[in-house]
């Protein structure tokens, strides 16, 4: 591939990585399986991404990436209980690695991979300890050095169009999210990641009221916006109220996510689904599994996507690394061609490539290598500015005001993953709870002269429960059948906790220890302003 000899036009390539996990914290158990999601994301995605960006920064490369940190993820990253458990998680994995390395029955290739993982886990542990578990601080540092542009999303990743009938919730999700982000990072975010890129008409008014200046929409929303202007998806467009939109580039998504041709499905890459714990009976694995009382993945994956005679081949990290770099060059060549096709006189274009941050490393093991190589190539070629243009970049901004179309980045551009027969039962209860809470607030602040500390705490906790129940993750998991029981439990528990607290307030009987227990278990958004949940937009 001779990508680097081709001349091209100038343009912007903006990676937008959205890091999010639902709030999962179970101090009531020693081990809790779903907490592993955070630990795996830290090990495989967040730390590798931080390290690669810091490495490139140190080398003096020019780049900037938009990185969205959800308020729930920030809350978990900052949770000392989870931080401690993360280290324990790494230690358990290191024990498994060591056992594998020492086990004479383990094949040579597998031993080599155990060493590979051992190095990776040790590296993560050292990094985590070196920075005193303060990953948020590392992200903020990169933001201050203009290598990242940190943005955030709604408080609990609620899909906003679903709450159009209770617009107070939309505003509350946006405002609480922003406040929480500011508290953790000290940054006033200009950008908003709309959960699932879910947009409906009128949402820009809420976005502006919450203090955001721009957001990202699905291709469909901009492509079918009114008026329809050519190449709108490659420019910054804006709503009547000035909120700016950037559209997902379909080609970039295709290259990375196509089921048939997407990079991660390459046969040289690591197979995601097959894990050591799937069929190993080693004592260490059995002990590890035993913590969670059922078989689960350890994160030690020894196999590649490739198969031979129906059997998975061992993973070759070196070969996979070469392929990732090759794919990076291919990607950049494609971007150059895209840019060339778009080029108009005196006009620059922006290619926006949003992905889930966890794609890079966790889901697609070689993703960080690919991303690093993309940044290196862009720096060598110099035809792309890596990053989002500033708001005042007139050459990319489209001066025409548009009305985007409602859409999501989900299946069929619709909301069907979050609203369907498997999960629609959530919403009637949720909406009723919101109304009930608004009624409680109205009553309490009409009748009570002084809000006691205990009542204040109870109202805060009720607000937390309500917001947690609104997380889009639960509806999605219920739909896909992945961790369905847990997702179901979380929705029911959050609503039950709200019901309990509402009941306690109405009966003027707040059980102290139960309130305390809920504060410990749903230890999120400590300074939440519950009035936001009833604030009329």
């Amino acid at each position, binding site marked *: 591939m001779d990508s680097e000899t081709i001349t091209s036009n100038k343009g912007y390539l903006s990676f937008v990585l959205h890091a999010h996990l639902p709030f999962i914290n179970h101090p009531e158990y020693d081990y809790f399986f779903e907490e592993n999601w955070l630990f795996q994301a830290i090990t495989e995605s967040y730390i590798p991404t931080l390290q690669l960006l810091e490495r490139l920064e140190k080398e003096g490369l020019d780049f900037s990436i938009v990185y969205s940190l959800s308020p729930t993820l920030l809350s978990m990253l900052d949770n000392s209980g989870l931080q401690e458990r993360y280290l324990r998680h790494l230690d358990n994995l290191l024990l498994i690695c060591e056992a594998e390395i020492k086990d004479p029955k383990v094949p040579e290739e597998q031993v080599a991979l155990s060493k590979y993982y051992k190095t990776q886990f040790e590296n993560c542990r050292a990094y985590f300890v070196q920075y005193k578990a303060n990953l948020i601080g590392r992200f903020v540092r990169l933001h201050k050095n203009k290598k990242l542009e940190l943005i955030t999303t709604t408080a609990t990743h609620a899909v906003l169009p679903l709450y159009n009938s209770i617009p107070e919730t939309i505003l509350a999700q946006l405002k609480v999210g922003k406040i929480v982000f500011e508290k953790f990072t000290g940054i006033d975010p200009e950008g908003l990641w709309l959960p699932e890129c879910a947009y409906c008409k009128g949402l820009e008014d809420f976005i502006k009221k919450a203090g955001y200046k721009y957001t990202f929409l699905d291709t469909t929303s901009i492509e079918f916006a009114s008026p329809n202007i050519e190449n709108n998806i490659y420019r910054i467009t804006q709503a009547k109220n000035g909120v700016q939109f950037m559209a997902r580039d379909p080609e970039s998504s295709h290259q990375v996510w196509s089921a048939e041709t997407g990079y991660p499905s390459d046969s040289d890459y690591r197979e995601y689904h097959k894990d050591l714990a799937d069929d190993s009976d080693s004592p260490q694995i059995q002990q590890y599994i035993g913590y969670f009382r059922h078989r689960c993945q350890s994160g030690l994956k020894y196999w590649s996507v490739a198969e031979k005679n129906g059997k998975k081949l061992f993973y070759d990290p070196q070969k996979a690394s070469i392929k990732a770099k090759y794919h990076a060059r291919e990607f950049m060549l494609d971007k150059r061609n895209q840019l060339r096709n778009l080029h108009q006189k005196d006009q620059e274009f922006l290619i926006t490539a949003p992905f889930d941050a966890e794609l890079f490393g966790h889901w697609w093991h070689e993703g960080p290598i690919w991303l690093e190589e993309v940044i290196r190539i862009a720096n060598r070629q110099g035809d792309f500015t890596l990053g989002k243009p500033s708001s005042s970049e007139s050459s990319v901004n489209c001066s025409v005001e548009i009305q985007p179309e409602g859409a999501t980045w989900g299946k069929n551009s619709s909301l069907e993953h979050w609203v369907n027969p498997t999960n629609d039962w959530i919403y009637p209860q949720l909406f009723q709870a919101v109304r009930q809470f608004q009624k409680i607030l109205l009553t309490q602040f009409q009748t009570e002269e002084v809000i006691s500390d205990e009542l204040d705490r109870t109202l805060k906790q009720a607000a937390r429960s309500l917001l947690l129940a609104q997380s889009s993750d639960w509806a999605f998991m219920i739909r896909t059948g992945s*961790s369905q029981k847990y997702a179901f439990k979380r929705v029911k528990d959050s609503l039950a906790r709200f019901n309990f607290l509402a009941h306690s307030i109405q009966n003027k009987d707040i059980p102290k220890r139960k309130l305390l227990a809920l504060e410990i278990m749903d230890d999120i958004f400590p300074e939440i302003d519950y009035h936001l949940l009833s604030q009329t937009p």
Partner: protein
Amino acid sequence: MSKKLKKSDEYHLSQKELRSIDEEIASFASEKETCLEEAHIDIIPIKESQVLAFWNCESEQSNEQDFSECDQKLVVSLLDNDKDNRMDMPVHGGSKHMYFDLWQSGLLVEAILGENNPKPLSSENLNSDFNGALNSQNFKPLASSGQQSTFSRNPKEISKLEDFTKLVVTNEPEQGLGVSERSVPIKPPSLRIGHSPEPIQKLKTQQHPDENRDYSSSENMPNLPLYWELEGVIAAIQFSGKMKLPNNNLSFFGQEINKTSAHEFLYFYPILQEEFEKIKATLLDPLNTHSLSNSESLHASISNIESILHFQDLRDAQVLDTYLKRIQYPYQFLKPLSLPIPPPTYLIHGFRDNN
């Protein structure tokens, strides 16, 4: 560690006590489960490929002020495209009903307008109550007795629509990434550009359709084969290069309509009506360089279609008007795309294999 956090032991709460409280409070969920049965759903589209759902829920202490939006009891049941059976659904049925099916984004949506249905729909009672009572050829409204309203599609018909879905939307099996359901985004149709859906608030306050109208009657329904004439007109536009519609899918759509019964046509009707008006305007626009306004045969064809489709009559039908405003029909069949969409955000949720 970056922050000192609350720990149970600092407050003399053991893990055991936390778990005990957790379990105790979890029981408060049961009080609300009845809410499910009392819920009713509004499905209000933003545009063709999106369906936004708005639920209004009556609580036990409901009052008019709180639930003023609940005047309308639109109940929607969604059939999973991957399954033959219907999922349990909250329902408010009613004394007078309208029935329509909507194939929407891979989901079949069945809606019933009405009120006072005390029972939720479930796979079980649907199968027993309706599979025999209603089929694609024989749609009848329920009597005004307030009895449970449950309509179901004939399973064979569902299969047919599923096949249709498969033909139109290229849901390729997942490879490599193992994402269980690859998103296949569908563009809204180019024909619909410029269409402006009703504002949500307005939609929410619309009145019920005429309860006395018998929508099961097919006497005013159009002569379905004449849809082919309409398609001919659409083909002419395609030929003109002004519109880009995939021939195969459109043709298939036409065939599907041709095979359907009158009541099924009801839900395709708004598409035809609106598209026809646009097509006509385009074809007859003298400013359009591709205008066929001088074509006598075209005028004849348009006139013929208009007279048979009874546009004005149907446009005045309150029910159609309501439906047209409430639910914009999906247009995926017009322009499927092959571009992929990333799976939603929780890429790391698929870990548990023995859950």
